């Protein structure tokens, strides 16, 4: 019965979001409530993580319907680690939003929709039912449509129209894939699906359906099909863009991991080879995009794409080291992408320009901002004391074990290109002659920097505290490698 707590990470934000809609004029109260809800979700996921560590995977059958029939939530270490990270990132982005987003947004329910976004994200992580995954995706996407277009600038509206249409199409493919899968195996419960697919030995028909899922999640995660991403992520206000960059694609990545380790893992020569090819194309395309642009936000957006490719290299190799590496990298990337988006947004807000060749010598005006950017850059490139290192090492080890040397080479060349693309920003924007004199320098409010400082501390702590995190990550990778653990957890509770 104590497992009921498992619904909290989704229900708490939903209820808070509904409450916030009624509290429209009370901005201050809205801020407090939304922050409390997000912190509560984070605390809850820590408690749940401990419990998973102590007594195995948690499940809850909603409404008391027994596993294959009802909808259920399944909390394993993988899902709960991501819930925790999502809560932390959302809390930090909220903090940034408090001081930057402005009264126009605040009066138009921005905090309520951030809550709904978090509810959808957490629901997607925790659900154990494929159709419920679709529903949680839609909750998240509807909130993101609104957050993307809120403000109503021309560019925002145009980009969010593209974003909405792309996502309607990908949701449509998702439904088609679900329909075919239901027609083929007659269930949508993930554990039950896993059993039935294993019984049939993943027939060619099922492999074809798995490719449909691959397309859907590629669109959501920005794997190969990332053409919509840089535009959408560079249009909304900084706090929202940071939230998108940190959370949205990661949900697609999570779904991809779940589906291709729990359900369709019998034909790796087809599915995982394709994932590898797509990861390679993503790494190449993302790197070209990141290097070719001069707009800081577009560069950061393309870095999101490269990271997705990098994590997919881990999935393609699918050894225990590679999966562990991908999980580390997923957590690291959520923190650091939020950090980079916040810093890029702050730089643009301070200088009023968005291209790095129009900025110069910012380090004299805003030293702390410069060093934070430097930390983010090193962390993303995988320099040891920071959090990107362990993920990269483990993914590298995994690809060597799996013998996929081309992916290994591409993954590490792309890391160098990530470093190069950000180093270009750093060199041009922070070094060089200071063009802003002290008199005309815009004051940098402390409240603009605190969120970035928190995230930078986060990446250092994550880098140094790998030992603390290791048992959870190993457990998460273990469940991914042995679907039986997941299936047993779902069915044994009866």
């Amino acid at each position, binding site marked *: 019965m104590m497992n009921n707590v498992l619904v909290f990470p989704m229900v708490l934000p939903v209820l808070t979001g509904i409450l916030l809609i009624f509290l429209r004029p009370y901005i201050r109260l809205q801020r407090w409530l939304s922050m409390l809800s997000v912190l509560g979700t984070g605390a809850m996921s820590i408690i749940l993580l401990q419990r998973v560590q102590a007594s195995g995977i948690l499940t809850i059958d909603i409404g008391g319907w027994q596993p294959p029939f009802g909808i259920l939530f399944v909390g394993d270490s993988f899902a709960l680690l991501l819930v925790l990270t999502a809560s932390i990132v959302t809390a930090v982005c909220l903090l940034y939003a408090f001081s930057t987003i402005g009264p126009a947004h605040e009066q138009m329910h921005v905090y309520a929709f951030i809550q709904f976004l978090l509810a959808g994200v957490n629901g997607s992580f925790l659900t154990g039912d494929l159709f419920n995954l679709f529903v949680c995706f*839609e909750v998240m996407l509807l909130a993101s449509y609104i957050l993307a277009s809120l403000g109503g600038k021309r560019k925002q509206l145009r980009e969010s129209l593209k974003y909405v249409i792309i996502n309607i199409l990908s949701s*449509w493919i998702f439904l088609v894939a679900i329909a075919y899968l*239901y*027609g083929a195996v007659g269930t949508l419960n993930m554990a039950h699906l896993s059993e039935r697919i294993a019984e049939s030995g993943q027939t060619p028909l099922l492999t074809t359906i798995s490719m449909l899922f691959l397309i859907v999640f590629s669109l959501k995660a920005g794997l190969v099909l990332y053409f919509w991403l840089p535009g959408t992520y560079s249009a909304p206000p900084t706090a929202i863009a940071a939230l998108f960059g940190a959370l949205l694609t990661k949900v697609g990545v999570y779904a991809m991991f779940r589906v291709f380790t729990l359900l369709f893992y019998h034909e790796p020569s087809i599915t995982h080879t394709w994932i590898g090819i797509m990861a390679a194309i993503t790494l190449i395309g993302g790197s070209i995009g990141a290097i070719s642009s001069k707009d800081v936000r577009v560069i950061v957006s393309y870095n999101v794409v490269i990271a997705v490719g990098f994590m997919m290299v881990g999935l393609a190799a699918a050894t225990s080291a590679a999966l562990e590496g991908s999980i580390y990298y997923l957590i690291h990337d959520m923190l650091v992408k939020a950090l980079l988006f916040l810093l890029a947004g702050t730089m643009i807000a301070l200088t009023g320009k968005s291209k790095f060749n129009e900025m110069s010598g910012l380090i004299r005006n805003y030293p702390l901002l410069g060093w934070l950017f430097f930390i983010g850059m090193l962390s993303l490139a995988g320099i040891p004391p920071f959090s990107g290192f362990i993920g990269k090492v483990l993914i590298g080890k995994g690809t060597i074990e799996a013998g996929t040397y081309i992916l290994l080479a591409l993954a590490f060349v792309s890391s160098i290109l990530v470093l190069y693309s950000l180093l270009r920003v750093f060199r041009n924007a922070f070094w060089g002659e200071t063009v802003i004199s002290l008199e005309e320098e815009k004051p940098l409010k402390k409240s603009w920097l605190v969120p970035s400082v928190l995230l930078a501390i986060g990446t250092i702590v994550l880098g140094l505290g790998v030992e603390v995190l290791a048992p959870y990550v190993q457990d998460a990778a273990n469940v991914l490698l042995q679907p039986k653990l997941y299936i047993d957890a779902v069915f044994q509770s009866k």
Partner: protein
Amino acid sequence: METLIIILAGVLVAVATYLILSKHILRIILGTAILSHAVHLLLMTMGGLKRGSTPILAENKVAYTDALPQALILTAIVISFAVTAFILVLAYRLYRKTGSDNLDALRGMDDE
């Protein structure tokens, strides 16, 4: 009967694809609406159309219709309704802002 419904779904997808590939936002939105109808039909057919009786547990009833696809469709309809409503408002706002619903006229980056 199943074959007929599947063909109907296929025709709807063809129509929707044609509409989505046009340049006018309103047509694209209509296309997405028709597309969602097509997938609802597909979902229903995949669960098997009506055979046997209503899915209520009772004596002497062996065959009954699968109720799950109906529940799935109901959810999917609600979602597509919400998304269509939102995108219509978005298109209207875009039209008010730019005075055009032609995608060609909306091209171009960094115009602010």
